[in-house]
């Protein structure tokens, strides 16, 4: 009687014990986790800038026509400075309507139209940026923004930065292991923690100034790679 009734108890205990054994059966690994960083400075080979034309007026057809003329002239000016058609993209075009009001705040019925046409240009000869800006203004651009130097193909710089980051991580791991009185073992895992940049950094001076355009300094671009490495400790 007693044994029969205690059977469920034994079942439960043995079940839990076996589950328990499965969890604690592994061997312990002693580990060290470090982050490594590598950065490479690259001279930018492209610059991106937005060149916009805004026109305003009471006659929508006229405002659009004026805008078209100026926007065409801006594109032509960019083309003359060697910008290929595939490096010019219309990134913004809008027409908006603004009501006019009298002194009592009532709508007069007259309307003002706003027209904006903006192209984003990738200039591959960065030394011509000063000339491009000057020519764009002469052609009718009245809304310019986002002078941004960059690298067209950063993959080579990224490889170099990645290699630097791995080496940085290994050196830091060795230093920490030694300081902790342990010996660095084999690499358990390594992963990239993301590539940042190219971001505008500091750079070379004074290109384009000689052309009589807008004074421009293109600078260099920084490509940074971070890795996280786990090493075994012995």
């Amino acid at each position, binding site marked *: 009687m007693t044994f029969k009734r205690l059977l469920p108890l034994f079942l439960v205990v043995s079940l839990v014990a076996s589950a328990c054994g499965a969890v604690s059966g592994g061997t312990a690994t002693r580990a060290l986790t470090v982050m490594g960083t590598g950065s490479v400075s690259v001279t930018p080979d492209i610059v991106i800038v937005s060149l916009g034309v805004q026109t305003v007026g009471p006659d929508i057809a006229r405002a659009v026509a004026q805008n078209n003329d100026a926007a065409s002239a801006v594109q032509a000016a960019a083309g003359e400075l060697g910008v290929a058609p595939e490096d010019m993209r219309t990134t913004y075009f809008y027409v908006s309507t603004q009501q006019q009001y009298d002194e009592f705040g009532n709508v007069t019925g007259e309307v003002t139209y706003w027209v904006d046409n903006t192209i984003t240009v990738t200039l591959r000869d960065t030394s011509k940026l000063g000339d491009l800006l000057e020519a764009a203004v002469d052609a009718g651009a009245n809304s310019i923004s986002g002078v941004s130097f960059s690298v067209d193909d950063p993959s080579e710089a990224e490889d170099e930065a990645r290699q630097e980051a791995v080496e940085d991580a290994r050196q830091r791991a060795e230093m920490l292991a030694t300081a902790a009185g*342990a010996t660095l073992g084999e690499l358990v895992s390594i992963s990239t923690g993301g590539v940042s940049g190219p971001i505008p950094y500091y750079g070379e001076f004074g290109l384009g100034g000689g052309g009589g355009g807008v004074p421009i300094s293109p600078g260099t671009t920084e490509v940074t790679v971070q890795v996280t490495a786990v090493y075994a400790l012995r």
Partner: protein
Amino acid sequence: MKGVRLAVPLALAAAALALSACAGAAGWSQESPPRLISVTGTGTARLDPDMVIVSLGVQTQGPDIAEAVSENNRRSDQVRAAIREAGVADEDVQTVNFSVWTQQQYDEFGNLTGGATYWVDNTLQVRLRDLDRLGPLLETALSRGANSVQGVTFSVEDPTEALDAARVSALEDARSQAAQMAADAGVLLGEVVSIGEPGAYPGPFMEAPARGIGGGSGQDAVPTSPGVLEYGIQVTVNYAIR
């Protein structure tokens, strides 16, 4: 029936006992030993800045866009010359903004008058390595046409060595914390099981102005103080309990 009623709570109690014993042994993941002391040590590095980053901009405006641009160009050239005269290397200067913005003019009723004002901005970012020259550079740049200065940021170009030293002292801090806890708890401190840095790559988290620079460079200088940059490193260490 009576026996069954007794057996069920007994079974539950036994299971709970077995589980708690199990949790003691297997509460940690498979890779870790069951008994650990976990501590986070802190190390700091205090460094004198060796460079300063500042943005110097020229803003011009006017009813004639061509005039506003050419006036801006003229003044930007002079600011650039001032930067060069301050001994800043060519690779430490970059154009970070050039913009033209059209502002329509309104009458007192909020209606467009047809007139416009054009705003032109040309901004350079400068990395100055001779900190003594910051005050004079700001003064000269402003007197030559710069009218928009932003972000005087002191920093250290390569803090790696100092940060590694801070890591070692963070490890030492962790070890002494662990030793104290082991002694307090009446156990023996075992070997290091894991070491890791909880955070990402650190930046200076505090700027403590320590000494003034620039004030002594003559009267034509903006007074500036680089201070000291403090970097904090945290290291988390797990020790085995013996």
